[in-house]
Each structure stands twice: as C-alpha cells, then as structure tokens.
C-alpha cells in the first residue's frame, strides 16, 4: 500500500509540470493585452507600460517566462498579481473559505444523496422511489443561479434566517445556505446513482446467498449490497469535490463569497496570468490528491481491488 502511494505521488510530478505548462501557455495565448482596458478609453502612458511589462516579465519569450515561473514555484513563490498582491497569500485565504463551502456541499450530497438513493433503491417503484426521482429531476432541471437567487431572496432577505451575503470571515453557519445550494445538483446525481446501483445489485447472486444464509435485511443491504453499490458514487463524489472547489463561481457571486472560483474568473478577465496559473495549479494538485484518495477508498469498499 505504501509503495503504491509513493508511486502515485511520484507520478504527480510530471503531471503537475505538464499541466501548469499547458495552463501557462493557454492563459498567455489569450488575445488582448492586459493593459488595453487598464486606462479606460485612453492608451496608458508609455512609461507606465514599460514599467508594468518589466515588472511582470511580459517582454520575455514564453518558455523563458515559464522557466522563471517554475523556478519561483519551486521556492513556494506563486508570484504577485498585477495589483502587487502575493498570490499565495490570496489563495490561502480563499481556499480556506472555498474548502469549507465544498465540505458542506459534499457532506450534504453524500449523506442526504446516498440516504435518498438507498430508500428509493430498496422500495423501487413505490411512492418514495417516485418522490426521489421526481424531486431530483426538478433539481437537475433548474439552473443553480435560479435556485441560489430564490433561496437567497426567501431565506435571506424575506425570512432573515440566513445572512443574505456571507461576511468577510465566514463561519460554518454563514456558508450553510450557499453550501446547500451548491450541493443540490450533485445531490440529485448521487441519489440517482446510488438508487440504480443498489437496485441492480439487490438482484445479484451473492445477495440471494446472503439472504439464504439467514442474514437480516439491514445487514444484507447495509453491508453486502451498499458497499458494492457505492463504488461509482465515491468516484463521482471524489471528482465532484474538485469541481466544487473551482466551479462554484455562480454560487460565490450570488452570495458574495470570497472564494477561488470568483478569483479565477476575475483574474482571467483582467488577463492576470500569474494569478490564474497559481490558482489553477492548486486546483490540479487538489484533483490529483482527490483521485488518489478515491483509489485508496476503492480498496476499502471492495477488498477484491488490491493495490499491491
């Protein structure tokens, strides 16, 4: 197991280098000059342009800029944004908030989603199954920003149960409503995935054997069937966690959360390559670790999948 993990960690190095180069090349290949909109409808003063380009290595060819960037990265220096702020500091603050938000969403979709899926799966075709199917269909078909805005207007502005927008240093409660909104879509998928897999596995031979052995129904479902049925769900949730970290842009905007998604969006708009590459590189690393975690979990859920 340890050997496996070490091997996987070593494999990450070329992946990180390759992906950062791709991101770097793509970000700096974007059309438009970062200075074009900076001075409004007039061109920037030449002296400012010169200083700005020199400060941000904009005059070097792309490979040299990339090597310089990697060199800084190796020293833990993610560079500075066009505003002169340290990217790493910004990212640390923002990741703290985003991770909190993603954890709420993930817990919500994992617990409620799997529970709803199990209930629907064991009572296939009954009322509860139809209820889960219809309600998840509704959630899937309504865009997140509609759900988010509605929830904000009803629970924030009208009822006052939750803060309308999150304060600058949000606690768990402040992020609860946005987290639920963010998790609602994946919850629907998780519930449907669990339901289908569980219903299918309940017809498997080993389940009949377990029932014939005289095991109780909760044990047959909870231990034997569910464990097998969760493998695709865990794969989905693992990949989804990475997605929640970077892709919460809409939810972040609605609730004014100072998270990573909005940071990337804002930085792309202002052509702030250093900030984009830094933030996305962090995302790549998170994805890689989540993948590793999911692969290890496979072994726990199904001992037949061995990593040695």
């Amino acid at each position, binding site marked *: 197991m340890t050997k496996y993990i070490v091997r996987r960690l070593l494999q990450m190095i070329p992946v990180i280098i390759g992906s950062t180069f791709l991101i770097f090349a793509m970000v700096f290949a974007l*059309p438009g000059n*970062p200075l*074009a909109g900076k001075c409004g409808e007039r061109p920037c003063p030449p*002296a400012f342009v010169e200083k700005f380009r020199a400060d941000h290595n904009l005059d070097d060819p792309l490979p040299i800029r990339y090597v310089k960037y990697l060199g800084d990265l190796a020293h833990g220096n993610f560079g500075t944004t066009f505003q002169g702020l340290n990217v790493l500091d910004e990212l640390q603050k923002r990741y703290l908030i985003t991770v909190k938000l993603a954890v709420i969403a993930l817990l919500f979709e994992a617990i409620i989603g799997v529970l709803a899926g199990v209930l629907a799966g064991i009572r296939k075709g009954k009322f509860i199954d139809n209820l889960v199917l219809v309600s998840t269909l509704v959630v899937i078909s309504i865009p997140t920003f*509609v759900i988010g805005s509605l929830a904000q207007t009803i629970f924030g502005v009208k009822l006052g149960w939750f803060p*309308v927008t999150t304060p*600058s240093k949000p606690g768990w409660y402040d992020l609860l409503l946005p987290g639920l909104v963010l998790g609602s879509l994946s919850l629907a998928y998780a519930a449907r995935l669990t339901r289908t897999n569980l219903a299918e596995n309940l017809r498997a031979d080993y389940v009949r054997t377990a029932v014939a052995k005289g095991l109780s129904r909760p044990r047959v479902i909870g231990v034997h069937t569910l464990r097998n049925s969760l493998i695709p769900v865990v794969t989905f949730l693992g990949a989804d966690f990475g997605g929640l970290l970077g892709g919460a842009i809409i939810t972040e905007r609605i609730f004014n959360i100072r998270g990573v998604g909005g940071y990337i969006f804002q930085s792309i708009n202002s052509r702030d390559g250093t900030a984009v590459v830094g933030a996305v590189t962090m995302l790549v690393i998170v994805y890689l670790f989540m993948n590793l975690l999911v692969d290890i979990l496979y072994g726990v859920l199904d001992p037949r999948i061995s990593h040695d």
Partner: protein
Amino acid sequence: MRGTTRTVAIAGVSALALLTAACSGDSGNGTSSTSGNASASSSDSATGAAGGEISISGCTPQNPFIPAMTNETCGGDMLDEVLARLVHYNSDDAKPELDLAESIETTDNQNFTVKLKQGRKFSDGTEVKAANFVKAWNWNRAGANGTLNSYFFDVIDGAADMDCGLVKVKDKDTGEDVEQPDCEKKPAASEELSGLKVVDDYTFTIKTTEKVSNLLVRLGYSAFAPLPDSFFADNGKAYGAKPVGAGPYMMESYDPATGAVLVKNPDYTGDFAGKVDKITFKIYQDTEAAYKDVMANQTDLLAALPASALQGEKYKSDLPDRTAEKATGTIATITFPSPKADKTYANPDLRKAISMAIDRDTIIKTILANTRQAATGWVSPVVDGYKADQCGEYCKYDPAKAKELFTKAGGYNGTISLGYNADGDHKSWTEAACNSIKDALGVECKAQPYPDFSTFRTLITDRKMKGMFRTGWQMDYPSIENFLAPIYGTGAGSNDGDYSSEKFDTLIKEAAAAADPAMANQKYQEAEAQLAIDFPSIPMWYGKAIAGWSENVENVKITPFGTIDLAAVTKKA
C-alpha cells in the same frame, strides 16, 4: 478616466442578473418583513445627526492606493475620502471650492501662485506644506515611476524632461523595431518639474507649458493631492497599502478580500468633515448581491443599482423612498473609424444621416430603463460651460431627413457595422441602434461583438477597427474642456477616430488662454460647434447615477461624479 474598469468588472454577470430578477420577481415590498437592525450598531448620539458607522458597497481596487496610480472607481472611492486637495468639488454642481489652498492666483493663465492654509495636517500628524505638493507632483510625473495618471502633469512646464529616453527594441509579436522608454539606459533629463518652485513653507508657484484657463478645476483631481514625507522614504511602498492623506477620514485597515475600514481623521480641521465616525467599504463581486444586502439592511449604501433592479423600475418598490438619481459627467458616443483603418465613413453627411436615423428616446425608454438622458451635444450637462442643443437637428430622430441626407451623401456601399465589447451591457442597445439605422436608411447594419473590453480596445488603439464602434467618456475633472481637448484634439490621447480640425485646435488653444472663465467657456462652445459640422462621433446619451440606501441612513446625496457624498450621510436616529 475612472470608471471604465469597473464597468468591465461587473459586466460579465449582468445577463445573469437579469435572469435572476425575472425568477425572483415576487418581491413586491421586499423589505417590509425583515428586521431593521441586522447590522445597525445603534448610534450613541441622541439626535442621530452625527456619529455612528455606515457601510457602503465597494469593489476590488485594481492598483496600489497611490493617488497617481489610481484611475478607477474601486480604489478611487476609498482614496477620495482619505485625501484632501487644493480644491474640493461641490457635491451639488461640481464647482471647485478652495480646500487646502488659501488662494490660487494668476494674471496670465500661465504663472500661478498657490498659498496654503496654515495648520492643515496629514493623518500622521505632520503639517501639509508646499514641499509636500511639489515633491508629490515630481514623483507622480517622473518617468521612472511609471504612474498611470502622469498625463495630468503634462500641463506643467518641464514635464517633457521627466520622460526617460527612447530605445529601439524588437517587438516580440511582430518583429518590427519599436521605440520604448528605457529608464536604465537613458534616464530622464530631470527629476523635477521645472515649472514648480517652493517659495516658502506655505507658498509655491506653478508655471504651465502653455496658457491654461481651467487649472483650478483640474487641481481637484486626486492625483494632485499632497503626499506626506513618509511616502518618499520607501517610494510609496507602505503608502500603497495604507495611504495617509489630509482628508476627513483615514484608513484604519484594508484587506483585498473583505474591504476597507475608514475612521475619522482626528487631525482634520477643514471645512468638509464627514458626519459619521466610521465607514466600511464592503467588497462585492456582483452588485446584485450588494443590492440584496441593501434590501435586507445589511449594507447601507449602493451607488449604482444593478440592471435587474432597474428593469421595470423594480427598485422603486424594493427600496421605497430610498433611491435617488442624478445626471453624471459621462457620455456615450459612437465613434467613426480612423481613416487609417476604414475610409468609408469619411463623408460628414453620411455621419449625420446615421446619427439622425437613431431613435435615442425609444432606446432609452425600452432598453435602458430610463437610466440615460438623450445627448444633445458632446459635453455633459453637469459641467460648467455646458450649452444645450449643440448638436442641433443632427441628434434628433428624423427618419425622413436622415434618408434625404443619406441619399445626398451617396448612400453606403455594403454593411454598416457597429462594434461593441460583449462583456459589457451593450448588446441590446447597439442592436436596437442598428435596427433603427436599418429602418430609416434602408441600409444593412450589423452590431459587431468583440469578446471583451481589452480585445476591443486593442483593436481601436492599434487602429485596426473597421466600422463604427462604441466609446464612452467619464470626466477626469468637471470642465467642458475635458470633454473636448483629450478626445477631439489632433493627436490627443483618446482621439480614437483620429479626428483633426485646425479650427477646433485653434479654438481650444484660444479658450485655454482666455482671461476669464466666461470667455473661455464661449470659446470651448465654439469648438464644440465645430464638431457638429465635422461630426467625428455620434453623441448618444449622458449617464445617470441611480443610488439606493438602507433604512439605517438618511441625507444621501449623489455627486456629479456618480458617487455618494459620504460627508453628508447620517445615521438615522
């Protein structure tokens, strides 16, 4: 040229904001059921007239807090409260009033003597002296410092000597030889503006390169603010994070993610003190979120309401009696391409015909939710020297006359195109304008989107933009001159269409030399009249600011700059 960056920053979500509004449209009287004291830390003064703290919606500053480096509203709004300048703009009509200056005198519009009030202090306790101005302006203009607002100081004698020498280098993209300033190889000839002289602690003189009749008005811009001695110790590094000014408030803390906290400057003795003790700028990525917070009384002030609230005047029921509007010093225009890029629009009659074919009033009413005022000239009505109807019949919708003029001009061969940046809120009105042109003139017209503001501006600056394109202007200082000289002067920085008229340039020069303001204004108006003959651009409309506030504050006033006069706001008792 503040404000444009902000437009870009919030532009991306406006479509989304519109949609969300449609789906949450049940908020007929949205504020009635919420508790009013969510963020109210009740004021300790008995009358509620002074003291207490308020919060205002802000956005992320794009530059360090150095006056000469701040050219957009996000940072500018915060900095404005911290700084004091020689003159202060009246919040009703933008008339300049003396602030740090005791007097500013001249006999020839070229040599000015500035006398300072004694005893005015920076928030670090040091006194504001003449050297603080001279050193600050020298630093701001110095080529090696590369500031964004350096062009404001071009008017002072000796500014050209502050530029670094040009060095030939190969352009990385095109491989052509281009000239770039290089301060290491060819340092500037001088590090001081020869036109500035300190006479004594409270007096200095300014000599301008040529006659300037509106210098007094210009001196109110924040780039002209004095800088304390501590600024020069580390070239503004510490200052950029925490500015020190002589204004009514001082910056207690700033965090890019959360915002700025301003508290009263204990040393302030000027005439423009604020009423409240503490102002918090909360940073929002989206004005839609800020608007909801104002509805729930969690944020007190919002200077520009989101598009979703303006649709169908929804804000009037959301914030009953808690909104205000005012014309601001901005104008939207459609500029004809530079002859270097596209010669097909050269005929002034064709230009006038297109202008007359656009039904401004209907577009404002149906698409822009009455948030603009149709333009009748090239100068905003908020500035001194404004004269109505300078554009005359050419800015009035008249399809019959437009068609007549169009035929006289020989028509247009091909499709008229109107460029806009797709990340702003420009799609609907440019398309409507094009339809109006199509209907009136019977010529094809296409609204042409470009992905974002920076791509759009690059094409314009490089003179590669074919067809007409949208332009906007927000005044730097409240003067008629600012709407003419920088945009239509030959070779001027923002002359995107490369307009050039000898008569216009001469009139601008004469106006700058005029002995009294009335005389100067008249000359500027004559220059504007010349634009109505050559028609370098189509005036579309003037901007209007619509602000909203929570139940916790009163006495909210909008300035001609579209900002909220924070000195006047009070906490409700």
